[in-house]
Every structure is written in structure tokens, then in C-alpha cells.
């Protein structure tokens, strides 16, 4: 077990907040000597979020109440909505709070199609890709059974959807919805949503983008992208779990998934989760930090990747040449097995993943990597490393050393040797 000395750890947070974070970690039964490199699965709540929790929790009233107890929570809700809207470039009327990214995705697709169907819209063709989050892939599977024609645009090893491939598949009077993610959760590749949207609009299709992995990593401006719907989730951006956002452009058709007491302007029923929503609002109020943080992370990530390429024979980085967010690295480590690698690294104190977090805890080779044309063997020896705001140089150094050691051991057990014909060039 690797024990990290935190004394030398240079934190980006103030010492006082760091202490609060450590206290909170201890309260949650976590040891702070672990290195967390799975920020694409979820981010730890920011230390400033943790210090504000109790004050938000004290606004426990129902924001829909007319009496005084409703005032505080209502204000929290409005403030959060304003800062989220500002960060994504929307008007606050276009910002709907949900419970999570999956709900936002489902609501966008279901809500749009349901509203159009009611108006007698006959269009049934949907364009998407195999890179999407399961909440969309499974929704599309269900829609196929309901008579929709869902077409997945093929993607190559670049991990980037080509807008030309989307354009070629658009069908006037048939294509009703186009849905592509803004940032892929496994490779970090940024998709050309603006270009896709422009093409889709020429046939009058609605456009949704799953921007869950983009929030807090790159600048997101829904107006600039031109989409009708965009999904976000707070827990990928250092806020608490339990708050998602659906941006729905003014005038875009949208039926509710959850009917209720008129919350979110009758678009999403249910008493609002003020605590989570406030934390997301708070993080969005810090949107001006995003760029600087991303730069720091990019330097660390690039350093990490160059060391991996240099020191682990035949290692490669998936989608290295594609436009990527700063924090994500999808490693391909031949001669290993992602599942074993993950377990070994976990026991050594490092939290990483082999792909999307899966509730069963039993990873299959990533469908995203397979869809990009990686072989099953390649997908099985892939490892996803997700850096975050609190990741330090020291953590990266320790991780590289451990990764090298574990990979070498696993390769030794498998009698794997670098192929003699390919010379290592880096």
C-alpha cells in the first residue's frame, strides 16, 4: 500500500478549506491517502462547497411555499438558476433543474418527441452515435421498439464524429432529432456539435447535446452551439450529486417526464433538491476559474502522457491526435488486462477506471472503444485516467511509478514482450 505524504501536497485550495475537506473525508469514512484519478465518473465536492453545505441545508423549506419558510429556498433556487444559466449562456427561463444527467438526457429526447407526436409530427428518424451515454443508448433502444428509426453514425479511431457523416445521413422531412455528446466520457474527445447543429438545422431537425462531461472542463455556450437541448450534471463539476440541468431553448417542444406541482414552470414536477442545486449554482458562479484550472490540468495530463509513452513500452493514448478536454486520458496498455490493472491499482491506493462507471461493478469491454473500431483485446487493456482540480504533480508522479510497476508485473506474468519489429518511437 502506497502511503502518500500530504504535507508536501500543493493544494489549489486554501489551507482552511483543505482542512474542511479532510474532515469531511474522514467523516465519510474515506482515507485521504488515496489518489483519485477518476474525475470523469464523479468529482469530489469542492472544499468550498463542503463548507457551505450546512448553510444551504438550513434553507430546508419548500420553495413552492407561500409563507416565509419558502422564501430562503426559493432565493437559493433563483440564484442557482441564474448562475447556471449565465455559465452555459442560456436565459434562466431555459434552464430546468433535474436530478441527474441521465434524467436530463431522457427528458430531452422523450420530452421533445412526445410533444411533437402530439402535434401530429410524422418524422421518425433519429441520428446519434454509439459513443453516447447508456441513458441515451437505452432510450434509443426503447424508441426503436416504439417505431422510431434510430441511425448511429459510425465513428473511427479518432473518436470524433465527422459532421460530414452526419450531414450525409440527414433526411429532410424524416429526421426529427439529432443527438451527439459534446465531450466523450471515455476518451475526452470534443465533438463538432456546432457544425452538426448547423447541418441538422438545414433539414429542420431538433438537436440535443449531452454536455455532462463538458461542464467545467471547457467553455460551453448553448447559443453558440445552436442546440435546442443540452444536458448537464453537477457532480461532474465538484458540486453534490442529485442536481442535473436540462437546457431547453425557448420555443423548443418539450413535454414533462415527471408531472407534479408545477415546479420548473410545469416542465419538471417534484420538490427541488435545494442542497444539490445550490452547490451546482455555486460552482457555476466560479465559471471564470474553468479556463485557468483546465490549463493546469492540461500540463499535468500532457506530462503524464509523455511519461507513459516514454516509459511503458508499446503503451499508447487513444485519440491522442483528436481535440480533447484537458483532463482525460484513455490509455492502451498491451499485455495487460484493464480489469486486473484497475484492481491492482486500487489496492495500491489509486482510483481509476476501465470505462464508464458501471453499477454492477463488473466491467465489460467498453462499448465506446469498440464502436470506435478498437479490437476487443485493445478495449480490454484500456484504462481511463481522469484528472481533476485537486490533482497534484506529486500524485501523478506516484501514479506513473505504480502504473509502471504494475504493468511490468502483469506483463511478466503473461509472458508478454514488446514486439521486436516495432521500434518504440516517442
Amino acid at each position, binding site marked *: 500500500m502506497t502511503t502518500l505524504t500530504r504535507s508536501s501536497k500543493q493544494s489549489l485550495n486554501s489551507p482552511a478549506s483543505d482542512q474542511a475537506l479532510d474532515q469531511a473525508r474522514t467523516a465519510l469514512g474515506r482515507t485521504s491517502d488515496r489518489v483519485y484519478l477518476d474525475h470523469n465518473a464523479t468529482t469530489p465536492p469542492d472544499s468550498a462547497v463542503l463548507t457551505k453545505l450546512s448553510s444551504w441545508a438550513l434553507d430546508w423549506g419548500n420553495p413552492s411555499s407561500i409563507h416565509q419558510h419558502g422564501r430562503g429556498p426559493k432565493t437559493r433556487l433563483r440564484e442557482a438558476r441564474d448562475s447556471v444559466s449565465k455559465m452555459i449562456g442560456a436565459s434562466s427561463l431555459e434552464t430546468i433543474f433535474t436530478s441527474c444527467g441521465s434524467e436530463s438526457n431522457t427528458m430531452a429526447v422523450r420530452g421533445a418527441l412526445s410533444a411533437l407526436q402530439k402535434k401530429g409530427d410524422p418524422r421518425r428518424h433519429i441520428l446519434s452515435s454509439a459513443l453516447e451515454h447508456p441513458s441515451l443508448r437505452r432510450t434509443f433502444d426503447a424508441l426503436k421498439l416504439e417505431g422510431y428509426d434510430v441511425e448511429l453514425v459510425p465513428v473511427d479511431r479518432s473518436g470524433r464524429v465527422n459532421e460530414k457523416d452526419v450531414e450525409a445521413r440527414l433526411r429532410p422531412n424524416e429526421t426529427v432529432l439529432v443527438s451527439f455528446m459534446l465531450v466523450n466520457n471515455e476518451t475526452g474527445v470534443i465533438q463538432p456539435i456546432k457544425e452538426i447543429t448547423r447541418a441538422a438545422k438545414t433539414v429542420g431537425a431538433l438537436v440535443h447535446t449531452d454536455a455532462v462531461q463538458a461542464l467545467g472542463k471547457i467553455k460551453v455556450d448553448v447559443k453558440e452551439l445552436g442546440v435546442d437541448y443540452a444536458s448537464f450534471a453537477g457532480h461532474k463539476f465538484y458540486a453534490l450529486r442529485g442536481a442535473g440541468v436540462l437546457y431547453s431553448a425557448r420555443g423548443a417542444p418539450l413535454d414533462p417526464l415527471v408531472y407534479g406541482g408545477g415546479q420548473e414552470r410545469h416542465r419538471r414536477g417534484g420538490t427541488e433538491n435545494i442542497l444539490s442545486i445550490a452547490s451546482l449554482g455555486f460552482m457555476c458562479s466560479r465559471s471564470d476559474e474553468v479556463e485557468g484550472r483546465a490549463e493546469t490540468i492540461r500540463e499535468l495530463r500532457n506530462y503524464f502522457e509523455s511519461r507513459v509513452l516514454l516509459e511503458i513500452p508499446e503503451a499508447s493514448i487513444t485519440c491522442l491526435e483528436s481535440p480533447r478536454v484537458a483532463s482525460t486520458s484513455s490509455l492502451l496498455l498491451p499485455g495487460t488486462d484493464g*480489469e486486473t490493472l484497475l*484492481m491492482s491499482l*486500487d489496492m495500491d491506493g489509486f482510483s481509476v477506471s476501465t470505462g464508464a462507471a458501471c453499477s*454492477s461493478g463488473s466491467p465489460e469491454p467498453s462499448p465506446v472503444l469498440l464502436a470506435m473500431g478498437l479490437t476487443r483485446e485493445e478495449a480490454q487493456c484500456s484504462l481511463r485516467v481522469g484528472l481533476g482540480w485537486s490533482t497534484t504533480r506529486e500524485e501523478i508522479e506516484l501514479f506513473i511509478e505504480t502504473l509502471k510497476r504494475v504493468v511490468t508485473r502483469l506483463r511478466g506474468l503473461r509472458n508478454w514482450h514488446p514486439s521486436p519489429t516495432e521500434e518504440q518511437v516517442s
Partner: protein
Amino acid sequence: MNEFSDFVDRSPVGPDGRRRRVLVAMSGGVDSSVAAALLVEQGFDVVGVTMQVWDYTSCDIVEGNGTCCSSLDVDDARAVADRFGFPFYVANCEAKFKATVIDPFVAGYLEGKTPLPCVNCNTFLKFDHLVTRMKELDCDFLATGHYAKIEPGKDGRPMIVTSDDSWKDQTYFLFTIDPSVVPRLMFPIGHLNKSEVRNIAEEKGLLIARKKDSTGICFVGTQGYTNFIESQVGREKLLAGNIRLHPSGEVLARHDGIHGFTYGQRKGLGLATRADRTETESPLFVFKIDPVTRDVWVGEESCLFSTNVTVKDARFLGEIEDGERLKVKIRYAHKGAFARVHRKSSDELEIEFEEPVRSVTPGQAAVFYRESQLLGGGWIP
């Protein structure tokens, strides 16, 4: 291949002061949970793993908490790991399990056999896949909740011997283990009987203590194996035919498929209504299933007995002398009978029983013992 040393110190802490690490195969049941708990208590550095072998969401099986390795059982195993604070992982073995356990199971029944899927699971998953995992995760030992023991033999080399609970003893399922792996295995509950294991679970507050035993085949569940097979193959693959009476060959009834029968079966043959058989006549038993003619042969009880059995694909965990007198079990529930075991070829044996044994069943294994030591076994073709 003998990559492991034959003599391994089994104390929880090595001479270098490092705690020895044990990978424990956890099904979520009482036995493997107690096995893990005992190792923690002894001071080993325990790592738990559950093999996810079957996607219970993709089939009609009502997920049975009580069969092994359903997703509810994974939760139970994880709860035990949380309780003691050791690392726990789920290993995805679905594809391997289908190829090495489910498919041969279904094929076996369609060949008129009564397969032993638990042996295949042990051969290809527990004592192969998990042995690899043990090495990869830098573990010194692999432990399971089997009722079996590891004891030093005369030469000091570890050997597998029967459990102290002769009723639960599971060494029958372990005959295919590679002998080179034995020094690295642990069966922490082998010296206990089932009620003692349950008591320990109660004492340690493991909530699974009252869970019922997983005696059935884990992936079949409550639906019965015939329904399971029918759910796995097309109707056209089922081999319907006649039930014939020995020795006349008279057709007594039609049947829907040979997969619905097993050797020694007496009930459920669909012969109850036959008018000309009186109650004084002796009952009929299945004693032969022919996948070529699709005939299921029934006859009087005496047809079931045989003295000589040839077994194939024999595996050995210890040396045997040609013609040695050993105790041989021909099915899990068989008490065992004495026989001379002759080598016919490198992997074929002729077993000559002292007294005729009942229902030697193709697809099952003949497993032999010298006193309590598991020596090996072979498949009944």
C-alpha cells in the same frame, strides 16, 4: 508446468513481516463468507472477488437469492467485505462461463448425458481464471468456501483431503485441479461442519447466516433444468423419441426429448397410465439414453447395476499404482465403493468395482480416494 513451490509456509505473516495476501472467491453464500471472515481473523490480508458468471437480467429466471452469484448475492458478498473492511471486486466471467460451463451443460443433456457443471466451473473459472487473478493481484493464496481440506502428505507436500463434514464434503467437484496449484489453495472451512459454519456466521453477525443452502445448479434456478435447456436451444434441437422397454424393445410411450431424462430415473416417465402393468410388477427405471436413436430405455432395477466402468480424460492429484484398490465415488451423493483402478492408457482408466454399483451415469465423474486423500478422477463417457 510447476511454477509454484511444493512447500509453502501457510502462516499469515511471512518471514519478511509482510502479511500474506489471500484472494477469496466469494459467492455471497454462508460458506465463502465465513471462509473470508476466518482468514481475516487469522491475520491474512484478504481480497474478495465474486465472479459475475451469468447475466440474470437477460433471461426469464426469477433471480434466486440462494442460487450462487446472482446480483443480489454479489451485494451480500460485498457487504461481508465492507463489514471486515477488505477490498472486494467483481470479475466479469460471463463469456468464459457461457463457453465452458453453460454450453457444455446444454450440449451434454442433448447427448443423453447428465453433466456436472460445477466441475467445469471449478476447472475453468475458480481454479484457472481465479488462479491467474491470484497471481496478477500479487496474492499468495486462493481460498474458496469448499468443504475440503488441505493437509501435508507423507512427503510434506500439500494434498486435498475430504472435509470433516462428510455429508457436505465437496472434494468430488475438485478432481480436475492442477496439482501444481494445490500448495496455493486454502479451504478455510474444511475442518468445520455446516452447522458450525452457520454458527460462526451468526456470531460474526453475517446476515446471510440464515440464507438457504445453494444446492442446485446456480444458473438453472427454480425453473428446473429441462426448462432451462429448452430456453437455451431451439425446439428443433430437442431429440424427441420413444421410451422402450428392455429387453423386448416394446415402445411404451413417446417422449419430448432425451434431455428430460437421467439414468436411474423412476418418476416422471409418463408410464403411470399403462393399463397392462399391474402393481405387483416391479417398477421401471431409465438405464440407457441413446442420443442417436433417441430411445430412452427403461427396465427393471437390475438393469441399473454394473461392475466395470471406463472413464476418460482422467486427472490425477496424486500417484496411484496400477490396479490399486481405491474408494470410488460415481456421483456427488454416492458414498463411494471400493474398486480396482487400472490404467488403460495415459488418460483412460478401467474401474472394476468389488460390488456392482447403481446407475453409472454418462456425464458424471468417477472420483477416487485413498482413505481421505483425493487422488483424481475421470469422466464417464
